[in-house]
């Protein structure tokens, strides 16, 4: 059965923190709507590439153009929504 968006959000938060080593730098008000790049968390283009691989390895979704990442990786919620709508049905 496919995961719900909320379940994906929970899973992604854990994955992100682990993959990008974010334990020590999450601001207090960090949640699934906090912008990941630029203003919010301040991730950069290398992190974006890490997320491309995470999407592929964990969810089987391939982003061909790194530019797509700007919308998909805007926040944990947008990532969860993308996965939810694009994930191959099980």
């Amino acid at each position, binding site marked *: 059965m496919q995961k719900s968006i909320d379940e994906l959000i929970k899973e992604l938060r854990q994955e992100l923190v682990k993959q990008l080593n974010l334990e*020590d*730098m999450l601001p207090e008000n960090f949640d699934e709507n906090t912008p990941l790049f630029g203003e919010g968390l*301040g991730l950069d283009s*290398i992190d974006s*590439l*890490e997320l491309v*691989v995470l999407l592929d*390895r964990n969810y089987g979704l391939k982003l061909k153009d790194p530019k797509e990442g700007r919308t998909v990786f805007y926040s944990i919620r947008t990532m969860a929504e993308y996965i939810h709508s694009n994930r191959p049905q099980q």
Partner: protein
Amino acid sequence: MEGKKCYINGVGVISPQRTYVNSEFLPEVKSYGNNVLTCVTPDFKAYLSPVQLRRLSRMLRIGMTAATICLGNAGIKVPDGIVTATGYGFLEETEKFLKELLERNEMQLTPTYFMQGTYNALAGLVALSVKCTGYNNTYVSKGFAFENALQDCLILLNANPNFNLLLGSYDESAAVQYTAGMREHQFKKEPVNSLDVFRNKTDGCIQGEGSAFFDLSGEPSASTWCSVEGIQLIYRPESPDELKETINSFLLRHDVQETDVDLVVSGMSGCKSKDQLLESLERLIFVNTPRAYFKHLCGEYCTATSFGMWLAASILKKQQIPEIVRASNHEFPDQIDTIFMINHYFNRNYSLVLMRR
């Protein structure tokens, strides 16, 4: 034409001994029993922000921290250039990327390990962190890397004496390099107490690591440790006599007599066969000069000369020669004005450095 001298105006060293606090001088000595020496590290959080630390490998943390300590010691915010040196680079990251590549059959690979494995990653990150847009270079010439980097700095400072250049080295005690070393019979077969390595008289060295940063300038400052008068590199000398001739010419060019030298700091490695030339040399020149060794404290690695340089600079600045480095029966002087350092890496890469108070 011999270039002008330069000054060491700042130091930051992380090594298998407690060396990262500049006001101390080997307050305690650590010994190792398994032939692999690893760094005694500070709490990195005291020097680097969480944002900086996030993506850094262990060795990058060590290197960035050493650089930070050095700049702080020199009272410099932005140097005019950065030159780094390493023999084997960031092996842990290289190995991680390779392993993933092979295990995943070249699919779905992340870039971080690849990037953190590049040899100039440290020079680039330091430049980025302090926004240094000046000269930037990295030497990876095995046993000559640190010496090449120092030579590069000396040439630049000759033309720009008011520059502050950050000279740094790093090398890891990586398992991958240890295995390579064992295959090439570079390391000792049996475990030895690191502090006994010179008494041991067997072939092979002990593996070491560390990162050492120096702020160099053509002008002294309030934080000057000592001067570096000159350097010479000798590749694969054929005999102790050849080495002796070269040393004599080197001293002559710097207007120094053998008797002017108060202390010889020697990179004797503890490997019986590879140390032979240096041992013979001890009977030919500086016979009456007290000697200090350092590789029982830091181990052997490509850029170990940098640890020797830290030792010599500390001796000149603090006017103390710790018991643990004294390696001859001579009477050790109370006043140390001139130090001659000689190092070798597996009897291939020899270097001479002259330093003064």
